[in-house]
């Protein structure tokens, strides 16, 4: 027995030594991810640390904290992670949240791990970018609406989604957010401006010393976003009432801003595949309304979209839902992405004869 215990201890020592070597090789500490910083100087612990939940919020916050001294912005998830409905906090995330002065999330049920984060530190200041913004239904609820709608009356009036002002005016602010709504609001510039305002207020409140700089940045970035909104408003004249099928929840707000008739929204973010029934429903909707346009996320394999395009002789257009970016993306990634989307939509409208 003693010999065997010694033998077991030897195994433990070997495994332990190899593990220690692996940890040492990985950089003598916690392995970093592509956490971007608005200011890379100095020790993080001495700075005002703002942690964001995922790419769109991170990009927004980086724009607001750009050039503000002593402020570090870090993102929990990798920039290419995309939507984070099922994201799970890692040890590094927990560590980062333990040190954060302010945690900014998108809200609206997007971050399922929020409860875990809240339980981690009772004194963690959290701010939701989507606070007070109205949401449309989720993808599943969209399809449900369309199942029920009467084709005999569908003369283009069913395009407006509940909770959204289809005329491009201010979304209802008094609508408090629903946990089950579609929280991918950033593709609507007006809602994005509201997020901008919410995050600016949160930053100013948590770090009043730099309030002036945050507000300056907010005005500058807000002006650029406003210009994108103006371009969309111009495009609305051509796009209004044009039927479209969407393969991402984020496109709902973009299509709605343009006043388009959303026939169906299927989300590929989810872990479940699109059912045969849902695909058949999409085909029927497209045929009935003479739909041609299918929007899907760029660089995503979507056999259901291809099948749909073949069946109805439609065309797939790849748009950027702005849920992810490359590591170290520029601060203008949102503006650039939206302008690219506008260019693709213009091309699609021309192809479809509008």
């Amino acid at each position, binding site marked *: 027995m003693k010999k*065997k215990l010694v033998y077991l201890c030897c195994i433990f020592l070997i*495994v332990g030594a190899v593990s220690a070597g692996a940890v040492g090789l990985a950089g003598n500490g916690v392995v970093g991810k592509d956490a971007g910083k608005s200011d890379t100087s100095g020790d993080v612990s001495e700075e005002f640390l703002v942690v964001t939940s995922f790419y769109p919020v991170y990009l927004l916050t980086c724009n607001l904290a750009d050039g503000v001294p002593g402020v570090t912005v870090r993102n929990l998830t990798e920039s290419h992670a995309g939507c984070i409905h099922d994201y799970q906090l890692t*040890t590094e995330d927990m560590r980062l949240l333990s040190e954060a002065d302010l945690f900014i999330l998108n809200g609206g049920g997007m971050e399922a791990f929020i409860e875990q984060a809240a339980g981690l530190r009772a004194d963690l200041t959290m701010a939701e970018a989507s606070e007070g913004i109205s949401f449309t239904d989720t993808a599943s609820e969209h399809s449900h609406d369309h199942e029920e709608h009467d084709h005999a009356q569908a003369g283009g009036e069913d395009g407006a989604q509940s909770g959204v002002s289809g005329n491009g005016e201010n979304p209802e602010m008094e609508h408090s957010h629903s946990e089950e709504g579609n929280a991918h609001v950033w593709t609507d510039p007006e809602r994005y401006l509201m997020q901008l305002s919410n995050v600016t207020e949160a930053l100013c409140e948590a770090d009043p010393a730099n309030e002036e700089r945050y507000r300056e940045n907010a005005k500058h970035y807000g002006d650029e976003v406003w210009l994108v909104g103006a371009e969309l408003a111009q495009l609305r004249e051509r796009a209004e009432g044009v039927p479209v099928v969407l393969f991402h929840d984020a496109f709902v707000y973009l299509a709605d801003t343009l006043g388009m008739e959303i026939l169906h929204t299927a989300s590929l973010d989810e872990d479940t595949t699109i059912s045969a029934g849902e695909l058949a429903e999409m085909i029927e909707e497209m045929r009935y309304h003479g739909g041609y346009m299918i929007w899907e996320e760029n660089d995503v394999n979507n056999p259901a979209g291809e099948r749909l395009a073949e069946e109805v002789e439609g065309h797939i257009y790849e748009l950027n839902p702005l849920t992810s970016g490359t590591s170290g993306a520029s601060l203008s990634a949102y503006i650039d992405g939206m302008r690219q989307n506008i260019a693709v939509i213009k091309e699609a409208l021309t192809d479809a004869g509008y």
Partner: protein
Amino acid sequence: MQWISEFLKYDFMKNALAAILIITPLFGILGTMIVNNKLAFFSDALGHSAFTGMALGVILGVSDTGISMVVFGILFALLLNYIRSRNTLSNDTVISVFSSVSTAIGLVILSRGGNFSKYSQILVGDILSIRPSEIVSLLVILIITILFWAVAFNKLLAMSVNVSLAKSKGIPVRRLETVFSVLIAIIVMLSIRWIGILIINALLILPAASARNIASNMREYHLFSVLIAVFSGVLGLVISYFLNTAAGPTIVILSGTIFFITLLTRGIVKQS
């Protein structure tokens, strides 16, 4: 030793360490009898049935789905045991049918409306989010397991050698099997949220299987199983902290490594 203070600087790491120090010996002890009684597939099926337990909790509006998971786990274990005892089909077939059907029911209910991503956390588990009150419930089940072991160990051992022999000695085989299955069900369901459906069985089986490679008697078997489980658990948690990897799978990789080392060297050890 600076790394220890860094590691334990955060409350979530202290909680995770406490949970690991309870779960791993528990799994080490339980695993020995699961391996002996050839119940590895049974505990795996129980893990998969957690989906349905959680789904029923969601449908019934139970605020803590952990309760519905435990209740369903117990019912699942009892039903499975009953059907196995009727000897209509081979054990592995019955268990496989139960495992697949309960997984499918859970998936269908939880993915209604495309919301499965909300529940996918249970697949890999998350030991970092455990709270002190949940650690206490694990401690209670550890104590119950040790008491059960003290009372029923010899009888379970006789059953693992030969069921007919155990019956002839007056051991209530059916009743004991039922109690043991219920105990496995409770432990699996209470710890699945922290360990995850995909790897919970590996944590139950690997330490015991490694210990079996080198042990010559029951005392060694239990001692080695617990030591290997605790070592893999603590080291896995430390590595997951420094390498930013998921804790559960890291622990399984370590247990697996130890299993293969003991498997390759078992001849030398047993000869000596």
